C-alpha cells in the first residue's frame, strides 16, 4: 500500500463526481487516514465540465489538490481527452456506455451507466466506477466504502448503492 493516493474524477455536472469523491474521502477517514476532497465546476448545476479530486494519505496532506494522479475516472469525452494520453500510464477508467471505446494498456473501459440501469438506477454508475477503481488500486478497503455508503444513505437506497459497489468490484476481479 502506498503512503499517498491522488485521484481525479472528471466529467460533467450532475454525474455524481463530487458525491463520489466525498464517499471515497469518508472511507479513508473511517480507516484513520487523512483525506482532502476538492472540486472545480462552473456556474451550471447540470452539464459543463466538472472535476472532483481526492488526496488520501497516512501523513499530513499539505497541498490540497492532485499533483500526480494515481488513478483517473473519465465520464465524458472531454474529460477522456484530457487524461487518456497521460504520460505516466496510470489506470484511466472510463464509461463505455457514454464514450467511444479506446485501446491502451492503462485504459479500463466498462459500461458503468448500462450496468447501473440494469441495477435499477442510472445514478449509481459513479459508485460502480468507484468500486472498480478502488479494487484496482487498493486506495481504501471496500468495507470502508460500504460503511461510508451506509452512513450516507439508508434503506433501499443504501442497498442499491452497496450492490453497485459490489458490481464494480466484480468488474475488475473478473477481468484480471
Amino acid at each position, binding site marked *: 500500500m502506498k503512503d499517498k493516493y491522488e485521484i481525479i474524477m472528471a466529467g460533467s455536472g450532475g454525474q455524481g463526481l463530487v458525491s463520489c469523491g466525498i464517499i471515497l474521502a469518508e472511507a479513508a477517514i473511517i480507516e484513520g487516514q487523512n*483525506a482532502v476532497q476538492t472540486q472545480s465546476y462552473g*456556474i451550471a448545476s447540470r452539464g459543463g465540465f466538472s472535476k472532483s479530486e481526492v488526496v488520501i494519505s497516512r501523513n499530513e496532506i499539505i497541498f490540497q489538490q492532485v*499533483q500526480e494522479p494515481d488513478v483517473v475516472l473519465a465520464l465524458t469525452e472531454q474529460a477522456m481527452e484530457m487524461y487518456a494520453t497521460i504520460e505516466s500510464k496510470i489506470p484511466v477508467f472510463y464509461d463505455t456506455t457514454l464514450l467511444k471505446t479506446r485501446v491502451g494498456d492503462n485504459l479500463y473501459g466498462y459500461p458503468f451507466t448500462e450496468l447501473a440501469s440494469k441495477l435499477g438506477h442510472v445514478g449509481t454508475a459513479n459508485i460502480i466506477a468507484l468500486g472498480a477503481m478502488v479494487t484496482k488500486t487498493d486506495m481504501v478497503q471496500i468495507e470502508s466504502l460500504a460503511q461510508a455508503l451506509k452512513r450516507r444513505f439508508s434503506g433501499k437506497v443504501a442497498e442499491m448503492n452497496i450492490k453497485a459497489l459490489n458490481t464494480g468490484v466484480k468488474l475488475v476481479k473478473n477481468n484480471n
Partner: protein
Amino acid sequence: MERETRLVQGNQAIAEGAIYAGARFYAGYPITPSSEIAEECSKLLPKVGGVYMQMEDEIASIAAMVGASLAGAKSFTATSGPGFSLMQENLGLAVMGEVPCVIINVQRAGPSTGLATKPAQSDVMQVRWGRHGDQSIIALSPATVEECFTLTVKAFNFAEKYRVPVVLAADEIVAHMRENLSYPAPGELEIVDRKKPSVSPEEYKPFLPEDDDIAPLAAYGSEYVFHVTSSMHGYDGYSNNNPANAEWRVAQLHRKIERYRDEIVMTKTFDTEDMDILLIAFGATTRAARAAALQAREMGIKAGVLQLLTIWPFPDKEIAALGPRIKTVVVPEMNYSGQVAGEVQRVLGPNIEIRRVNRYNGTIITPKDILKVINKE
C-alpha cells in the same frame, strides 16, 4: 474528552465554529461560494435556540447583524465579493458604533460578479480599506478546514473582546474543500464574551472606555437605554462635533487594535530556522507554498514559509524579524496586483528582492508555479 473526526467542508466548519464560539444570530443573503454557511446556519442555529434570517439583500443582512449584536447576541453574516461590497457602508457603522460582529467573506474571482464559482484572494485591500473614513479592522485568513473552525472562534473572541467587527477572509478553495476535522470538545477552546457595564443604567456611558481602552457594552432592550450613531459621538453616544472629541475618537478606534496587536496577529512558521528564501503566504495558497518549500529543500534550496493567519493588522513585526535571515522573498497570491506582496515590500524595504507569483484567472496556484519562481535566477 475525545475529539470526533469527520470529513467536513470549510464552510460547514465556519458555521460550526461560529456556533461553538457562541454565535446565536445569523442574517445573510446566500451567494456562491459562501452559501453553505447560510445553509448550515439555517439547520444548526434553531437547534441551539439561535436565529437564522434570510434577508432581502446583503445591506439588510449586515444591518440586521449589527442590530442583533447590539441587542446582546453574538452575530455574524457571510458573503462573497459582490455582497461584501454592498456591506461596506454598514461595516463602517459597526466600526464607528464599536459593534462586536463577524463578517465572513469567502473570496471569489472578480472584478464585479467575475467568475462566481472560482477562487481568488483579491479582496485583501478591500477588507482593509473598503470603508470611507480612516479606521482599522481585524481580518483573519484560514488555509485548512481546521483553521476555518478555529479562526472563526478567534474572530468572535476578538470581536467580543475589543468591541470591533472582524472579517474572516476565506477563499473559495478552503471554503469548498472537505477534509478531516477533529472537532474541539466543548470547553476546549477559549471563548470570550463582551464586557458588560458594572455601573447603574443612569451612570452608563456606552462609549467611555475603561483602562483597557474598551468600553463595556450593554444590550438594547435591557434596563440600559443608550444611543448608537454612525456620526461622531461623545462618551454618551450622542452627536458631538467638538474637534478634540473627534480627534480622540478616531485615535481611540485605531488604538484599541494597535494596543492588542500582539494578541491579534497570528502567524505560523515552517522551516524558517535555516533558510535563504522565504515564502510568505496566506489562505489556501499557504498549502501550495508549503509543498513548494518542501520540494525546493529536496532540490537543495533552503526555503521556509511564513503563514499569515492574521492579515490585518499586517504582521509587520513578524516579517521584519525574519528579514535578516533571507535574501529573497516569494509571495504567491491569487490576485493581479500583489496586494500582500506590496505590504511585504513596505515592511522589508526596497533592497530585498520580492518575487511575486500571481494568479487571477480563477485557477489555483500550484507548488509547481511557485517552484518555477523559486528556481528563477
